[in-house]
């Protein structure tokens, strides 16, 4: 396993985890977004280890503004992330893309795509806004998802600990899954409960085994 930087179109260097043995299959892995990405971090890296063992080079870039990034999350946009993932695909000379959950919304479409349990932007936003409503009500404040969304699309919001800018919030609301020819792997194919649902970040070795096998099967 290697770590290193890759150049983004915005000119920053972002961190990536790589398993590069110059093999013919080179997979760009796009992590789940926001809190889901945090909950699935361990699982995602374990998935890469398995894919490496199965003979596939894989690359897991940071999204600008997240993880080790020095960029400000608040100014990131969904289209900016799409462009960044396109650049990462070019930089790592990826032959295929595996996108996890909301990662499917920013996956480069010029390569063959496999999507694991893809989620629309609206459903990710719905869960984050709802959490904010519950947090407010615990603190004795009355908020609504509609009210938060209206404010968020004007001035941005802090959701589940992430400072998300107004452009990102508006874009998420209407971000649909548009890769019609992507191969989809549903959670039902993997078995068990999706790790993004867990209350705490976690890992499930059996699920990682099954998912790695399914991905290999789909791209080989």
């Amino acid at each position: 396993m290697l770590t290193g930087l890759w150049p983004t179109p915005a000119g920053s260097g972002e961190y990536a985890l790589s398993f590069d043995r110059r093999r013919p299959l080179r997979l760009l892995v796009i992590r789940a977004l926001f809190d889901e990405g945090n909950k699935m971090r361990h699982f995602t890296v374990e998935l890469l280890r398995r894919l490496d063992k199965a003979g596939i080079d894989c690359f897991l870039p940071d999204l600008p503004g997240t993880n080790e990034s020095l960029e400000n999350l608040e100014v990131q946009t969904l289209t900016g992330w799409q462009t960044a993932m396109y650049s990462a695909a070019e930089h790592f000379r990826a032959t295929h893309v595996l996108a996890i959950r909301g990662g499917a919304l920013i996956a480069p479409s010029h390569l063959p795509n496999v999507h694991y349990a893809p989620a629309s932007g609206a459903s990710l936003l719905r869960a984050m806004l709802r959490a904010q409503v519950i947090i407010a009500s615990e603190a004795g404040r009355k908020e609504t998802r509609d009210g938060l969304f209206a404010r968020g699309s004007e001035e941005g919001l802090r959701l589940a600990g992430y400072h998300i800018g107004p452009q990102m919030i508006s874009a998420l609301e209407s971000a649909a899954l548009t890769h019609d020819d992507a191969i989809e792997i549903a959670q039902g194919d993997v078995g068990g409960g999706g790790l993004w649902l867990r209350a705490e970040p976690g890992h499930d070795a059996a699920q990682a085994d099954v998912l790695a096998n399914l991905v290999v099967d789909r791209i080989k």
Partner: protein
Amino acid sequence: MATNLPAPTAQSEETELLLRQVLADVLGLSAERISELDASSGLFGHLPELDSMAVAGLLTELEDRLDIIIEDDDVDGEMLETFGALLTFLDAKRADG
């Protein structure tokens, strides 16, 4: 013995099964631990892992799997306090829908 409780229907049994399944997924608990939950088992405020974000995920997943819409106003401490209260709420939602 006469009772005022509604008889369990196929739909309410299915709701209970789905709620247990979603709780198992969210809490990462075994089927055995989940089967021990009863009407008085405490949820929000009783299980430390069930914080606001986890509750939001739980409700959003329940909406998707039960094909219901949960309004902001529906969500309060009482509805989330116990397994029984949440189940009663979901049953009523499904019956309305």
